[in-house]
């Protein structure tokens, strides 16, 4: 019996499950029973964090600062001054880019002062007509890649202008154009540092792990406290959120390089700097470019969330449209966000892949052809705008700036569509919704909430132990203990329940669809393209159609999570199945397997490590979406984080809540990753 237990993990797991159920049955729910719920021992932690933040921000290390208003030196805290100057720089940069696109006076004010600007009403920076911006973008697309990209970029900008989203889009763009390069640069630097320095890597690694699973909202609160509210705060939160994947991928890319490349660089006589800039980073650019792509995606994903702390632009409008349940408008704005994401992504990719031709003997006109064309476009655009000012005497000059929400709109069409769906399918949707809530969601939720804390620990740590031994069990236990000692264990259980249900559905769909699609090269390519496209959408976009169908309910949240989280499950399944070597397929065929056997006995075991990582990603995606679901209305950790946003002393709460979410993810990550690595080793895939 004991020997059998040691041999078979399934058996161990069965025993674990039995003990778990027993514990659930035995332990009585009561406030004072520690086996039921642990006492919230670290309840005070948020307060301590709040106080320390306050101290650092307003009292720590006073320095003398000259105040031009009262013409005297004043004592001000260092941190405050420091964050204020960072805010100032970033705000200036954002405003600068913004005013190139939209015109304004703030840049001029920065150099002259309000008084001067008020006296000299002529000193206004005019906006570039949208035709010029769109033309310039198309030229850029052409110069970097070719006519196809030019056409796409041009059309994207025309869409944005025509649908009356020009101003918010340019606001969003200006903020992304600052945040994204900063994130890429920071990520590269940190990645290189970690690559060069072991200690740095040891410090960065756990930070990156946490940062990647921390919900977006939790970044907002500390940023708000340190940097205030506004576009710059949004940009800073975005940078903090978008940098970790860049660091990760930079390290990954650099580590994958064969040593010969470094040696070739050194033997070519590179100094350290040249080696880095000209050899290592370009050679690792495949992964680094994926990082850049990630950064852009994260920036756009943060557009909506950053609007919660005052970033202007599309995000803000989308949030308002969602709150007013104007699905059509939300859809149009959503398309703008997606278009900007794709445009930036394609342009950055084309830029990195561009090559120089050293052999062509070019004339002046050829060499400066793009600048010249831009000059022409510029002049034409301005002439058009001037003509426009005569044509559209009354109202708006459509050839200069199309004002917000004054373009064409298809809102009524979509609204009609929503109404039609509601009219036609009301009862079907409603009954499905009710059935789902009553028969599935509520029972699962109740089951989760009626788990005694001791049983939960046993199950989680036991699973960890079976999979990876004592080390993993302790990690998992540590993560859970932190959550259990806060006062939000029950909320965490609700988050866990939503996540579990979503992950189960997502993984099932992902593996089934992925497997089916992987059977044929055409469908494989198709599904990978679908995954790529879906990954370009900021997570927020998913809320639009589900709200359209199910209104503001848990079902909506769940479906949004499922749609969002199925993508990685599907992708990893397909890629896992594709990674099975051809020779194994041939060996299988010669052994006479049929399709199902091939899948069961060859493909599935061989691609298991891939699958496990896919499930891991699904968990991460699901968690982040669960928290965003708070905007629709849930009663889990996410909702509390959202609330602490509007709380003056919300830093501590937000941070601890964020950590709770991150730790749920990390505990699962720990188990799945260990498992995947073990399988990898056993299969000799490493």
């Amino acid at each position, binding site marked *: 019996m004991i020997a059998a237990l040691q041999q078979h993990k399934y058996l161990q797991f069965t025993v674990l499950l039995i003990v778990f159920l027993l514990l659930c049955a035995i332990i009585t729910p009561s406030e004072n029973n520690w086996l039921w719920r642990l006492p919230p021992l670290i309840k005070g932690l948020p307060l301590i964090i709040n106080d320390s933040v306050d101290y650092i921000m307003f009292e720590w290390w006073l320095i003398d600062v000259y105040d031009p208003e009262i013409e005297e030196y004043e004592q001000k805290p260092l941190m405050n001054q420091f964050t204020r100057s960072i805010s100032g720089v970033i705000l200036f940069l954002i405003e600068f880019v913004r005013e190139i696109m939209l015109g304004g006076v703030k840049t001029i004010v920065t150099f002259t002062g309000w008084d001067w600007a008020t006296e000299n009403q002529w000193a206004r920076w005019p906006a570039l007509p949208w035709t010029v911006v769109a033309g310039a973008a198309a030229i850029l697309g052409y110069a970097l890649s070719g006519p196809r990209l030019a056409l796409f970029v041009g059309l994207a900008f025309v869409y944005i202008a025509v649908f009356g989203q020009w101003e918010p889009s340019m606001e969003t763009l200006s903020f992304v154009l600052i945040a994204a390069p900063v994130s890429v640069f920071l990520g590269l630097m940190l990645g290189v540092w970690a690559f060069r320095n072991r200690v740095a890597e040891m410090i960065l690694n756990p930070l990156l792990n946490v940062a990647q699973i921390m919900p977006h909202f939790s970044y907002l609160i500390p940023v708000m406290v340190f940097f205030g509210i506004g576009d710059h705060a949004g940009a800073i939160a975005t940078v903090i959120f978008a940098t970790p994947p860049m660091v990760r991928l930079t390290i990954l890319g650099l580590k994958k390089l064969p040593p*010969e490349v470094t*040696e*070739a660089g050194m033997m070519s*006589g590179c*100094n350290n700097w040249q080696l880095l800039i000209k050899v290592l980073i370009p*050679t690792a650019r495949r992964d680094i470019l994926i990082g850049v792509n990630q950064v852009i995606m994260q920036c756009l994903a943060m557009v909506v969330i950053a609007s919660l702390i005052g970033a202007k632009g599309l995000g803000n409008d989308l949030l308002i449209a969602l709150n007013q349940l104007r699905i059509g408008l939300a859809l149009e704005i959503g398309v703008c966000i997606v278009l900007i994401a794709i445009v930036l992504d394609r342009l950055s990719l084309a830029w990195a892949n561009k090559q120089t*031709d*050293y*052999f062509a003997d070019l004339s002046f006109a050829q060499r400066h052809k793009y600048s010249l064309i831009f000059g022409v476009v510029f002049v034409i655009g301005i002439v058009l705008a001037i003509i426009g000012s005569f044509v559209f005497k009354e109202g708006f000059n459509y050839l200069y700036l199309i004002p917000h929400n004054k373009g064409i709109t298809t809102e009524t069409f979509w609204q009609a569509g929503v109404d039609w769906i509601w009219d036609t399918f009301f009862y079907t949707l409603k009954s499905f919704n009710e059935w789902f809530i009553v028969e599935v969601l509520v029972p699962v939720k109740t089951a989760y909430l009626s788990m005694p804390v001791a049983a939960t620990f046993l199950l989680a740590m036991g699973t960890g132990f079976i999979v990876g031994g004592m080390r993993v069990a302790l990690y998992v236990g540590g993560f859970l203990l932190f959550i259990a000692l806060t006062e939000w264990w029950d909320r965490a259980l609700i988050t866990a329940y939503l996540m579990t249900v979503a992950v189960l559905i997502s993984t099932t769909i992902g593996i089934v669809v992925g497997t089916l699609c992987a059977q044929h090269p055409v469908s494989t390519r198709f599904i990978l393209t679908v995954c790529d496209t879906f990954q370009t959408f900021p997570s927020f976009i998913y809320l639009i159609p589900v709200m359209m169908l199910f209104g503001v309910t848990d079902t909506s949240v769940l479906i949004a999570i499922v749609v969002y989280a199925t993508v990685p499950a599907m992708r990893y399944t397909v890629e896992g199945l594709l990674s099975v070597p051809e020779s194994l397929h041939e060996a299988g065929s010669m052994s006479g397997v049929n399709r199902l056997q091939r899948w069961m006995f060859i493909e599935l075991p061989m691609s298991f490590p891939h699958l496990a990582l896919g499930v891991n990603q699904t968990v991460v995606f699901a968690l982040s979406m669960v928290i965003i679901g708070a905007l629709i209305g849930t009663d889990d950790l996410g909702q509390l984080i959202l609330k602490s946003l509007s709380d003056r002393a919300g830093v501590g709460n937000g941070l601890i809540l964020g950590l709770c979410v991150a730790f749920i993810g990390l505990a699962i990550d720990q188990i799945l990753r260990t498992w995947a690595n073990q399988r990898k080793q056993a299969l000799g895939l490493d």
Partner: protein
Amino acid sequence: MSSNAVTATEPLIRCDSVYKIFGDNAKSMLENSGGVVDASKFQLAGCIVGVNNASFEVHAGELLIIMGLSGSGKSTLLRCISRLTDATAGNIYIEGEDILSMSNKQLIELRRSKMGMVFQNFALLPHKTVVENIAFPLQVKGISTQDSIQRAKEMVDLVSLTGRENYFPRQLSGGQQQRVGIARSLAIEPDIWFLDEPFSALDPLIRKEMQDEFLRLQGVLSKTILFVTHDFEEALRLADRIAIMKDGVIEQLDTPANIVLNPATEYVRKFTEEVPREKVLKIESVMDPYNADEDVSELKVSKDAIIETVAEAVLNAGKPVPVVDEENNIVGLLHASRVVNVLFGSHADHSAELTP
């Protein structure tokens, strides 16, 4: 490719008891061992011996091949000399200067002006085209884009890749990629040329072609060459001298003929067993002293000729054939029996017979 052209001057490369031992406490262990390194003892302590007491010299214009199986430390030795890794102990002199004591700056200067290296897996920069790759060492040196590209185009012609200047490495075959690697390593006109298994990743036919190409280049350029390979036949074919390594130790360092004729250790002998000698040995190594009394044939052969190339003529001559040096002086006689022996005699008793 004459090995004794400049013996009088300082050798271009000189290694003095070079050790390379991997592991955390390699240095202290080496100091305690007093220079006698037992690989197995070190392994128990978690150290791996890469190079064990290597001492040798390479003269200007010489082609030294370091031969050994994988894990024998041959690539490590090469990397010690190019200082891609730092030797644990010993001295390495290049033109009399100790490179181990060079600062990073001096080292970069040395590489920019005197060294070129070719890698087994080509190590081309994937984001650069053929010319850009070749121009790369020039550009990091600070030469203008125009000049460096100009020079790179000359190199492209030299390695017969004309017309493919704008290709990316991924668009080239293995042989072509290695041509780029060779051109890149030669772009700065180095004095010392390192080649780390340059043809090992290539198909046999391409390998042969590249070896010919290499010999052609060396005929034109006469660099000082350190060439690492695991292919004994390649070594015999190309080398002026061969250093055979095993477990970090240089087992024998000698000319190809001497290694084939007089293997120093059992390990070396195993390599030489299967070697077709007529393809390796020169006339010089099997000729007898010249005896004016003998009746000789009209035919004359060069002492540097490989036996295989003249065997048929010598056997058909019917009389001993006089052997001449570069100035056409007769330096020896070649009897047909000797050639027959090399061609058909059993290898084992061959060496005994041939030793004077």
